[in-house]
Structure formats: C-alpha cells, structure tokens
C-alpha cells in the first residue's frame, strides 16, 4: 500500500478551527494581558511578536504615507513634514528590528550550546537532512501524535512564510507605485524625490528583510524540532523508515558549468560577448563617455555637491 504522506489538511475542518479561533480571540487577548503571558511573549514567542509588529508597522507606514500624499504631496520636501508623518512607523520599525535581532541572538546562542560549536552550514544542511529524513519516513503509518506535531510545525513555518511573502509583495508593489508616480519626479526637486523614493524603498526592503529573517529563524527551529521528532519516532519504531530515495539530480546549469568541456565553451562564449560589447561600446562612444565623466570631479558622487 502506498504510504499516505499528506499531513491531513482538511479545508472544512480548517475553516471550522479558524472560526473557533476567532471566537476565542477575545479570551486570548484577555489572557495575553496577564503578566506571565507577557513574559512568555518576550521570552519564548518573540518571533510571533516580531511577525505581528511587521504587519502593524507596514500598515502604519502605508497609512501615514497615504496621508502625506493626500496632504499636498511631498513638496516642498522638509524634514519637518516627513518627520511628522513617518516618525511613528519609523519608531515601530526600529522596535521590530531590535526584537528581531534579539530573537536571532537568543536562538543563535541556544543553537551554539546545543551543537557544541557554531557551524555556518547548519541551517542549509539541517534543511536538507530534515527533508531527506522526511522523504525516508513513512508518515502515514506514524502515530497520530507524531503526525499532529509535525503538522503543527509545518503550519508554523507556512504561516511565517505567508507573512514574509505578503510583506515582500506589498513592499514591492508599494515601491513600484512610488517609482512610477511620474508626476512627482521633476527636474527641480530631484533630491527631494530621490530621498522620498529611497526612503520608501529602503523602508520596504528593511521590512521585507526582517520578515525573511523571522522566516529563516522559524525554519531553523521547526526543522530542528521536526528532525528530533522523526528521529525519536524512528528509534521507537524502525519500520517507519522507507527505502532510500533516489539521489537528487543536479540542475542542468550546474552540470554545464561543472563539466569541463561545456564550462570551457561557456567561458569562451562569455569572454567573446564581453569583448564584442567593449568594441561596440568604443564604436558608439561609450568609452568617450566614461572618459568625459571621469576627468571632471563628480561633486554629487563624493558628497560635496
């Protein structure tokens, strides 16, 4: 019989559990305000807090920026006006970054103690090892407890991934909207517009970055946990191990690059392309452009102008 590898996702059951959770939300919030729960939030569930902060900061930033636009655009650009609207999300971003950093440090320290030494490859290798273990593991025949534990871990990871993807895509869309807002980019206000665009893009990038940091940290922890659960289950019942899966095939590009002959052809081709581009550049005046720029002091490049 083919082993059942699904983790038992039932759509109707999921909706039911969601509605149950929503109903229980006021009670949970009430509990959250208790002192001991606060402590748990800052010590054990910091990643959840950071995720929540990311979403809140993003929403806050978008609202503030919208108000800034609506109240007469960005011009005349002044620190006072931008500060008035953006200081709040900026502070929130700072707090989020600090929490994310503490979260990373805390987990990193724990890992250091557990592994007895830091290995930079840990995360990648751990991912590979866990995936391999999972591939060789007969999940269908495993106990309900193991199934539910693994399912919860995966759900946790998927949730953080959803946050990361949604934050990144929102940030990307928002950056694109800012950049293609052509009416705002004019010759007279080049610095103001660039500063604003850079402010939006950097903010969006930092927000996405924090989200992916949290996801990375979540991956590391859940995979570690998954590995432990699977190994324990295998120790208790060795029959759960499936026959080894076939060795993973390498990517086509990797094979091309690593094969000596094809690699040589690829390098030669790229060299030829680069030389052709240089010749074309010399012919179309690109080289003269480089010289004309380089013989004059670029005041703005060095920060004087």
């Amino acid at each position, binding site marked *: 019989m083919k082993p059942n590898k699904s983790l038992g996702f039932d759509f109707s059951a999921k909706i039911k559990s969601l509605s149950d959770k929503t109903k229980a939300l006021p009670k949970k919030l009430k509990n959250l305000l208790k002192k001991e729960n606060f402590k748990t939030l800052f010590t054990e569930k910091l990643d959840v807090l950071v995720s929540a902060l990311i979403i809140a900061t993003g929403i806050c930033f978008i609202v503030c920026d919208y108000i800034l636009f609506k109240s007469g655009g960005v011009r005349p650009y002044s620190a006072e006006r931008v500060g008035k609207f953006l200081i709040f999300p900026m502070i929130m971003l700072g707090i989020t970054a600090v929490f994310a950093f503490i979260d*990373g*440090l805390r987990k*990193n320290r724990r890992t250091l103690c557990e592994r007895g030494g*830091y*290995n*930079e*490859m840990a*995360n*990648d290798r751990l991912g590979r090892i866990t995936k391999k273990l999972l591939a060789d593991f007969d999940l269908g025949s495993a106990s309900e407890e193991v199934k539910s534990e693994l399912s919860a871990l995966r759900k946790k990871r998927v949730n953080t991934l959803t946050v990361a993807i949604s934050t990144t895509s929102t940030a990307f869309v928002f950056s694109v909207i800012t*950049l293609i807002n052509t009416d705002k*980019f*004019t*010759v*007279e206000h*080049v610095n103001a517009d*660039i500063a604003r*665009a*850079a402010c939006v893009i950097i903010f969006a990038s930092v927000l996405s*970055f924090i989200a*992916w*940091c949290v996801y*990375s*940290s979540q991956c*590391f922890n859940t995979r570690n946990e998954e590995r432990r659960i699977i190994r324990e289950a295998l120790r208790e019942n060795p029959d759960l191990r499936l026959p080894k899966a076939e060795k993973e095939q390498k990517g086509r590009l990797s094979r091309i*690059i*690593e094969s000596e002959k094809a*690699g040589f052809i*690829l*390098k030669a081709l*790229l*060299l030829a*392309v*680069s*030389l052709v*581009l*240089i010749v*074309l*550049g*010399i012919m*179309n*005046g*690109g080289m*003269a*452009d*480089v*010289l*004309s*720029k*380089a*013989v*004059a*002091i*670029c*005041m*703005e*490049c*060095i*920060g*004087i*102008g």
Partner: protein
Amino acid sequence: MKNIFTKIKNFSVRHAPTKRRLIQVYSALLFNANLKGYISGSGGIFKGDTKNFCTPGLNCYSCPGAITSCPLGALQNAFASSGKSAPYYMLGIILLYCVMFGRWICGWLCPFGLVQDLLHKIRTPKVKKSRITKVLSVFKYILLVVFVVILPLIYVLRDIPLPAFCKYICPEGTFGGALGLLINPANDGFFSGLGPLFTWKFILMISFIVAAVFIYRVFCRFFCPLGAIYGLFNKIAIFGIKLEKKACVDCGKCVTACKLDIREVGDRECIQCGDCIAVCPTQAITWKGSKIFLPKNDFEKDTSSVCSEDATNVITVNNNAVAENAAERFKKRSRITASVILASVLLAALVYFNIVDPLINKDERPDYSDFDDEGVDEELAKIPFGEEVGDRCPIMTLDLVDGSGSISISSLRGKVVVINFWGTWCGPCKAELPYFNRIASEYEGEVVVLTIHTAYNKTSKAEAPGYISEHFDGSKMLFAYDIPYDDYSDEYYTALGGLGGYPMTLVLDDRGVISFTKQNSMHYEELKDAVENALNK
C-alpha cells in the same frame, strides 16, 4: 641594543605581510598612482587617457590619486546616459572582469577592501557571522537593483544623469574623493560647497569605518553592488578558487574558518581570499585556471610525467627529490620574475604620473595680461584680472549656441552678470538651470544670465542646442560655448578658477568685478542672495 634588534626582527617576522596583503597594497598604489594630486599642483583630479579604462575594484575616479575610472560609477553613468547610447562598453568591461576573476577582485585587488581588512586588524571584540549576517548579505542585491539600475534609468526619462549609489551611499567616494580633495590646500574652494549631503555621506563613511573594525568586510558583505555583480560569476570565473567535490569530505572546516557568509567555498559570497586552503584536511580546495597558482603537488605530477616521457636513465619517475628541487627552483624563479615585473610596472607608473606627466602637461594658468579690455576707466583698470572675489573678470569672446554670433563679458558691462558653467552630461548642472532661468526672468533688464556649455567634450557640445530648445525655448538666458583648452578642459572655465568640478557659478557686478563665486550646485535662494548683493553694491 641587541635585544631591541631581536625584538624588531621578531615583530617583523610575526607581522610579515601575506602575499594577498602585498598584492592589495600594490593594486591600491597602482590604481592611485597620481600621488601628487593629494598634496600639490593646482588641485583637482588627474585628467588623462588612462581614465578611459576602469579599475577592477571600487576606486572613486574623483579621488585625486585615481588614474582610472571606477567601474561602479561608470556603470551608473552609462545607465544614466542610456537615453542617447546603449551602455555596451561598461557592460562589456564588467562582464570581462566577471568572467576573468569574479570576486577574486574583492579579495585581492579592491583598495576599499584593503582599507576594511586593515581596520579589522585593530584588536577589539569582533562580531562573528551568523544567520543574521547571512540574510543581511542579500541587501547588496537590493542596493544593486534599486540604486545602480532602477534610479539611474528612471532619471534617464527626466534627462538627468543620476549616479544614485555614488551620491547617496558610496563611502569610497567620501573617503577617497571628498577627503582626498579637501586635504589639498589648493582645493580650499570646495569647503564652501559642503552641505547636508556631505554631512549624510560623512556620517555614513564614519559608520562604515567604525563597523569595519568590529565586522569583517562590512561594506563588501552587505552593501557593495559591485561585489554583488562579481559574486554571480564566481563559479564561472577563469581565475579563483575551486572545490574538488570528489575530494571533499563535507567536514565544513572551510566554511567555519571563513569570515564571510558563504554556504560553500567559491559561492557568490566568497571573496576568494584563499584562507580556507590551509584548513582543508583533504586538500580539496585549490586555485583554478592558471599555472601561476600551480600547487606543488601538481607540479611534481607534471614534472614526473615529462620525465617519464623522456625516458632517460638519468632521471626516473621515482626520483622525487630531484623533482621537488626542480619544482622549488621553478617556483622561486617564477616568483622573482613576477616580483621584478610587477615592481617595475609600479615604479614606472609612479614616475610617469608624478614626474614625467606634469612636465609634459604643464599646469599653466592663463596669462591674464592677454585679456584685452579696452575702454575702461582708470579706476577699474587698476583692479587686476583674476578668479577670486574682488578681482576683475577676465574677458573672452565666446560663440553663442544658436550660431547667431559671439558675446564678450565687456559688452555686458553696466548690468549684473551671472555666469554659469554647465554641460549636458552633468546632472546637478541640469537640475539647477531652471533656477537661473527664473532669475533671468525675474530680473530682466537688470541682470544678464550667461550660461556657458563645456566645449572640450564634442559629443555633449553637439547635444546642447537640442537640450536648450527642448527645455528653455524662449528663455531670457544667453547660451554660449566655452573654448576648448585641451582634451580634458576648457579655456574660460580654467581661467575663472575651475578645478574640474561642474557646475560653477560666478556673479559679476555692473563693473565686471567678481562679487560671488561657487564651484558647486546652487539653490534658488542662494543664487538670489548673490544677485541681490551684486545689485546693491
């Protein structure tokens, strides 16, 4: 006394520079061979044909010592000029470096990498790599896309060249360019231009410098777009480091020993410093692509095979000692030859750029006595011609851009004259021109605004009429061309104290005496104040 010598000897043995450090210092000196630019001369930067080419590493071309262009700055400028011609040249140059060396350049040739390496040698607690730094290393790709590609391309649509990364982030420009220029007393005029942008860039530079003490190669790992581009080609590059997968036992010692956020040796984060070669227990890490880096074992193999083909009785395959000696001799000979050639090249460059070149291209200021100014009253005639405030503005006849004739400053006497030097290739010049246009309209009849376009650059000179008719059709400003002085500068610009930085603005009072001068961008309010001052004199 003997004890001191022994201590010095021991110190020098302990702190002997590695081969990598020597090559880094060598390349930094070679790329910045115009040492006289920092201390003497008439200020400004090096102007010569070698600036047609780019250094492989990050080295600002506005640095007084630089004899070549910075590939990142030139790439942004190429994108910024893509409205008129495709950036083939810079893409070709970057691709060539990528295919040849990859990030080996970052580890061995980049002058800013050397600065960071030296700063990191200061004995302080260090921040080790972690998952946080690993994720942070992606940030340089964001900077590459946003600041090097998207922003310059967006501003092409507005006809403004904007090197966004150089302008808002690059600490090398502030460190080598701004500070390099400001330490030369001949450039004291630049102090007047320091503003909020300099404050921002200076703070950023200081932050990078401080961070480099605690975090290894902080700029290269998290912020350098050039390293990001090179890193993508690390696996394809002809020179560099390689990992023999068959010999690798996956012990992870190389990755643990590496200070950068690599996942495996030679990946996109690897700067190919070669420190991992020593820690590899199976010697799976080697240099690829060149006999220069031929490891001893390989050489023995090669020598043995050659000997066996000769099949003589004198040397046999088993004669390892002879082969080892031959290998040692070969290595020594190669090392000496390479050192002599490299030292000669550096010496020749230093001599040429600091001694020979200044003799050929004598830095001559125009002789102000040549400027003919007839018909002035005796009192005015007593004021000497010059470039400073209070001097009489030198007179020259310049051709008008519309081809309708020529114009001389002496013909404008009786009105306040604003002279602005600009070029279509210069972003800040174009950005401030509307302010001059506004002044010309607001003070019509009292003030004449004369904008003088660069002439040594024939391409941009040809673009000027089109740009003017597109943006300033019906303007009250006068548009003229400068007179080419040599291949890299103009005569009137040089006569009025130009050091190579554009835009430059002068305000003359109604007698033709300079009342204001600035070699930098101007805001409307600043310009208006200068004009008002000249009017009230």
